[in-house]
């Protein structure tokens, strides 16, 4: 299959089992968020996917091939949580080296490095040594080296860590661009608001297993919340029309097309109910996170 496919992944360090059978799919053009408390195994999972760690069991395939296949790596981008790389070189030289290793031709490399540094807002520091870069700038360098070869598979570990609000918005835009380009993206982040904004699905990793899966965006279903005026509706009628009964004057249901929203509201109003508001329903990741902890 195309995309990332993980089945029954297990990883132990001595007797401590960190991953206890992870199943995971990321389709092309999909952004999947990975959340969970510290020590849940998120970084271990990411390390296994990238081939840094050898799993004790299970399979990892990317586009139907092994994850350490060089052709897969050629189409893979990775942003680590901490940018601790060689600080003695300047930003441009570092990115040129990374670009050449990513097999960008000698003729193209300068243009691509300059374009990426401009895009990420660090062109002014191109000739400065990485040791003089702030944490946010290093994070931008990390994004540059990961995106410079337009990867099909992108693994991001806390990419907004240390970034200012402009940087956070920029990373969000970049992730959306990768999604539109058809890249499969795995985003490991503690920034739940960011995960909500960019991810199609969220996996909650806890105790070495994926304890919760949540679809935030889908091409085939649109979750909506309709707020009703208290005392104006009959619960049974609403349940019959919407498929679910209201709770606290709110009906949460799913439609398959946006056109169906107006039709559904019209039928609810026709039943005599007062409708105060209609909005797209988003999952409360914070509650899931708290519950999972």
């Amino acid at each position: 299959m195309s995309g990332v496919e993980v089945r029954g992944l297990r990883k132990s360090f001595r007797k401590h089992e960190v991953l206890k059978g992870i199943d995971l799919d990321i389709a092309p053009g999909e952004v999947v968020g990975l959340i969970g408390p510290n020590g849940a195994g998120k970084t271990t999972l990411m390390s296994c996917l990238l081939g840094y760690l050898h799993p004790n069991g299970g399979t990892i395939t990317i586009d139907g091939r092994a994850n350490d296949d060089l052709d897969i790596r050629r189409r893979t981008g990775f942003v680590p949580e901490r940018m601790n790389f060689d600080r003695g070189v300047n930003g441009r030289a570092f990115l040129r080296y990374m670009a050449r290793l990513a097999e960008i031709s000698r003729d193209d490399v300068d243009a691509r490095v300059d374009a990426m540094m401009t895009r990420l807002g660090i062109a002014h520091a191109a000739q400065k040594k990485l040791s003089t870069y702030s944490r946010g700038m290093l994070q931008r360098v990390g994004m540059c080296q990961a995106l410079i070869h337009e990867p099909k598979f992108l693994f991001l570990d806390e990419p907004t860590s240390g970034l200012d609000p402009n940087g956070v918005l920029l990373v969000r835009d970049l992730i959306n661009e990768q999604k539109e380009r058809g890249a499969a993206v795995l985003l490991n982040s503690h920034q739940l608001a960011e995960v909500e904004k960019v991810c199609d699905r969220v996996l909650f990793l806890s105790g070495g297993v994926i304890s919760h899966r949540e679809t935030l965006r889908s091409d085939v279903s649109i979750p909506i919340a309709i707020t009703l005026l208290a005392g104006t509706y009959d619960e049974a009628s609403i349940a019959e029309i919407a498929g679910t009964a209201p709770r606290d004057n709110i009906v949460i249901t799913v439609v398959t097309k946006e056109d169906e929203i107006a039709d559904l509201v019209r039928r609810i109003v026709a039943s005599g109910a007062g409708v105060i508001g209609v909005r797209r329903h988003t999952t409360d990741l914070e509650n899931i996170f708290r519950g999972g902890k």
Partner: protein
Amino acid sequence: MTVGESLPDARHPLPGDRSESSSSGNGHRASGNAFLVVIAETWRRNVVNVAFIVYVVLIGLIAVGSGSFSGSGSAMQPLLVLLTLIIGCRIIGPEFSSGTLQLILAKPINRSTYLLSRVAGTLVSVWTALLFVAVCNLIGRAISDRPLRVETLLLTMLNIMADTLLVVALLALFGSLTRSYLNVAIYVVLLVGCNAGQGVFGMLRMARPAIAKTLSFIPKILVFIDDNLFAGAPIDHFDRDFLLLAASNALIALAAACFAFRRREVPYGAD
């Protein structure tokens, strides 16, 4: 402006199967490019390093002044071996700890290729310094009107090249097994330990002959390590045994380093 719109086309013809275990011709071609890129970058970073330049210039000045590059009691060889230790200790171990290695291993380069290209880049750097020092020595001899046979100079250079090859191979092996700068620590401990151990055992043999007899295998091991890993290059003559020993032991060390590095786990954020 999107990344896709703003950048030149990143797509290249797919070079076919280039898996880690692949031995296809295309795979070698792609790895070959990465091999040269890493060698060039390693060399570039070394030769633009101020400390490297200062050190090499100092050795060069000594070579000009003494003119003893290829004479008995030459200081050139140990100074160049020291240079090899200084720049060779950066192979793998420190990169693992800094996080650079993890970024590089996410790129399409297999581990053995990367390790060998780092070794080659380090050797090219050291041999660049060697060439510079040899030229300085020739200049020094020309100034002081002391003749030197080119054959002698070339043999000395060959011996030093073999010696530094073995040192870098050992540092790569130790670096592939450890973190940070432990590779050079292991090298120095082995170097000093073998000699000191033999001395200590000699004293033990005099003080406690019975215990020394029981432990007689220890000095044999120390001598074996010393002879094989730290043989020391002859100064100015052709020594086929030394060259074969250095080359074969370097090859064994590099093969072991590749084997260990391919199986090594390199979690990021480990340090």
